[in-house]
């Protein structure tokens, strides 16, 4: 119902028209005092003005976007920009736009997109099988650009990431900083040696074991960097025919039979060993199951 009183020399309709200017401080002091006098003397306008202001303030505070949606969107954005960066730079005009770019980038794009989703699935499998808490000191071995690292970090006390690639660690550092997530970076030599720090309560690893020549030696090394009772959660491919990697450089294993992972963990001194399917990743119409091995240091 329209209200048309006149208070302090202003009609309600005039106040309604100027509420935004009043809220934004976009009027002369004199006019402001006059509107304020109307509001002080008119219950209906005062009530509406208060509600209007509160509603706009609530809008300004915004609501957080779902973080998982955002992290996937940002990961895909990085991949797309990385591809663009490789295609050319703006100074030389070598940049290809639209479909041209898409055609050229499609192969890597698909691969990278799959990698993002795979990391997300592994992180979910880890958090559903290992009780995570703010007390845990965690290492991601072979963290890469931190797809798994950054998803787990907010659920644990402290997170470290070890990798042999300085470029990937630099990318991880940038992402960690922008998301305000502290991650300790541990650069490794190309042979994978270097200080792993710790001791940790949990060591995780995703799609890294098949790049490691001597996996039993790595498991023994994990034992040395774990607290008593500390756990591992390790994801990698089931044994496959060598079709997963187009480029075999740096690939020491074409996946692993699960019983072999089990035995290696046992030999290294782990107990409560479980090897289960974490997810299945598809590539060129073929399914590749990914296992998650969890175990506890005796």
């Amino acid at each position: 119902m329209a209200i048309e009183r006149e208070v302090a020399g202003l009609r309600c309709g005039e106040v309604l028209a100027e509420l935004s200017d009043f809220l934004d401080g976009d009027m002369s002091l004199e006019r402001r005092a006059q509107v304020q006098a109307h509001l002080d003397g008119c219950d209906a306008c005062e009530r509406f003005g208060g509600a209007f202001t509160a509603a706009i303030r609530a809008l300004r505070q915004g609501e957080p976007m779902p973080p998982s949606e955002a992290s996937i969107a940002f990961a895909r954005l990085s991949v797309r920009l990385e591809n663009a960066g490789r295609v050319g730079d703006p100074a030389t005009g070598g940049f290809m736009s639209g479909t041209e770019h898409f055609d050229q980038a499609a192969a890597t794009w698909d691969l990278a997109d799959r990698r993002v989703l795979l990391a997300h699935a592994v992180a979910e499998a880890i958090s559903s099988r290992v009780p995570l808490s703010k007390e845990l000191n965690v290492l991601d071995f072979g963290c890469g650009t931190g797809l798994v690292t950054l998803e787990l970090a907010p659920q644990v006390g402290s997170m470290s990431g070890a990798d042999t690639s300085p470029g990937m660690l630099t990318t991880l550092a940038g992402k960690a900083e922008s998301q305000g997530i502290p991650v300790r970076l541990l650069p490794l030599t190309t042979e994978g040696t270097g200080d792993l720090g710790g001791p940790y309560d949990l060591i995780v690893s995703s799609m890294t074991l098949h790049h490691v020549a001597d996996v039993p030696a790595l498991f023994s090394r994990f034992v040395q960097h774990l607290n008593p009772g500390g756990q591992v959660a390790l994801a990698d491919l089931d044994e496959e025919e060598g079709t997963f990697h187009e480029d075999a450089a740096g690939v020491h294993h074409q996946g692993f039979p699960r019983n072999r992972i089990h035995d290696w963990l046992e030999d290294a001194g782990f107990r409560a060993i479980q090897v289960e399917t974490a997810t299945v990743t598809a590539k060129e119409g073929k399914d590749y199951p990914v296992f998650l091995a969890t175990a506890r240091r005796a």
Partner: protein
Amino acid sequence: MEHLPREGSLIEDQILLSQAASGDASAFEAFVLCHREAVWRFTRSLTRDVGAAEDALQETFLSAWRSSASFRGGGSALGWLLSIARHAVYRQHKGRAGEPERMESLAELGEAAGWGADFDPLDALMVKDEVGRALARLPVEDRELLLLREVEGLSNEDCAGLLGLGVRALKSRLHRARLRFVAQLRGEHHGH
């Protein structure tokens, strides 16, 4: 956190963009990290669809990379980016931009928002997600204006430039959009 200064000052943005224009991908990456949250918030709220929002997000930064040399620093870099984002969104929905505004009288808009009614929409603000839902139900031109002005905190001048309006027209549209938003919040609360 009302109208806090955004990450990355204007001068910093300008330096990063000029380095990007000469082919420095790491400078551009730093620029992306400063602003991707805001662009995501904007495209995600404007499109209502994750896939379309992701496409627009990527198009925005690819286009910004291509045209980094054209940023002159006349307004904020965020305003420049959101202007690109807006075009990226509208390319997906051709014909959405420039729809004539429905011209209800202010009194009608006010009444729909509860002017003169015996109610208190403050209650609605206590309920999680209602602000977002009310915003999502607004016509796209109101939504984008409120996102730019209130959520991202751009100035009236930046918003006017971005939407191709004079400042006076912008302020009039903003007031109407705010009233429609309050009306939606009220409708949400009353379960209409």
